[in-house]
């Protein structure tokens, strides 16, 4: 049976949501304390949402120094699939595992709502079970989800099909309507929306479930 490591920093708050969503998919997910420097045998790593270190300084800026992030970097080098959701995406960018940065929303307001996203590439561990251009509704929940990178980086992302999810109606000013991106290998993915929340109290909704299941191949 597959197992997922879910990294918890002080201030992380979506860890149980991720564990619960994977449980509904029949996958065991285990919490890993930020002070651990080993992840053990895992098939994938998720860095969940929340406010690691209060989002002080910049979201993800302090979390990237945690010992567990050293273990995440090692896992990334070994080709273990890594997914950063919301604050996890911010951590991966700050740690340099993904390019660019996430700035404050253009409207300068926190946003918690359902948005429509389109699958822009199926060449990533996250989107491999999706259909190209498939649209799905996902919750967002962030103040700093406005993806920014210099023009060269954006061009490189587009040319190599590393933009994996795009907003249908851009809620936060994100460059190129980007909701999620992958690294060059397609094995490290970050996205601002929260697939684990789709369906709320009634259980994981189908297209979002397929997205999360993709991480385990």
């Amino acid at each position: 049976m597959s197992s997922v490591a879910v990294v918890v920093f002080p201030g992380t708050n979506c860890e149980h949501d991720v564990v619960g969503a994977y449980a509904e998919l029949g996958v065991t997910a285990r919490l890993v304390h930020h002070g651990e420097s080993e992840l053990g045998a895992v098939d994938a790593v998720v860095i969940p949402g929340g406010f690691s270190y209060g989002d002080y300084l910049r979201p993800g800026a302090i979390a990237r120094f945690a010992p567990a992030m050293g273990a995440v970097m090692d896992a990334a080098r070994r080709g273990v699939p890594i997914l950063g959701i919301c604050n996890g995406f911010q951590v991966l960018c700050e740690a340099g595992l993904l390019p660019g940065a996430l700035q404050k929303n253009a409207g300068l307001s926190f946003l918690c709502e359902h948005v429509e996203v389109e699958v822009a590439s199926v060449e990533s561990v996250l989107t491999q079970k999706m259909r190209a251009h498939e649209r799905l509704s996902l919750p967002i929940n962030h103040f700093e989800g406005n993806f920014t990178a210099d023009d060269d980086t954006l061009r490189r992302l587009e040319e190599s099909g590393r933009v994996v999810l795009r907003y249908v109606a851009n809620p936060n000013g994100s460059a190129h309507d980007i909701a999620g991106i992958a690294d060059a290998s397609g094995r490290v993915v970050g996205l601002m929306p929260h697939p684990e929340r789709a369906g709320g109290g009634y259980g994981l909704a189908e297209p979002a479930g397929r997205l999360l299941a993709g991480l385990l191949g």
Partner: protein
Amino acid sequence: MSAHTWVALVVVEPRPGIADPEGRAITDAARHLELAPGVNVSAGRAFRLELRAVDERDALDQASVLAERLLANPVIQTWRIAELEVVAP
């Protein structure tokens, strides 16, 4: 050599060419209030560091290393040490 307390002001600003959504929103608000016609605002951070250092060189080194490694994200920001002074033995 004995150490003294130094205070450094590290100013972190949006890298030119990088979108500055907060600066834009403040610019709009400032113009709306008609307090300063045609003003442009860019929004950054100011960190005041209190350090123990043996001399100016040492203080500058410590502040620079913190700015580079922690306080600024070089992908979207630049930093500089705007002020540096010794305050107490």
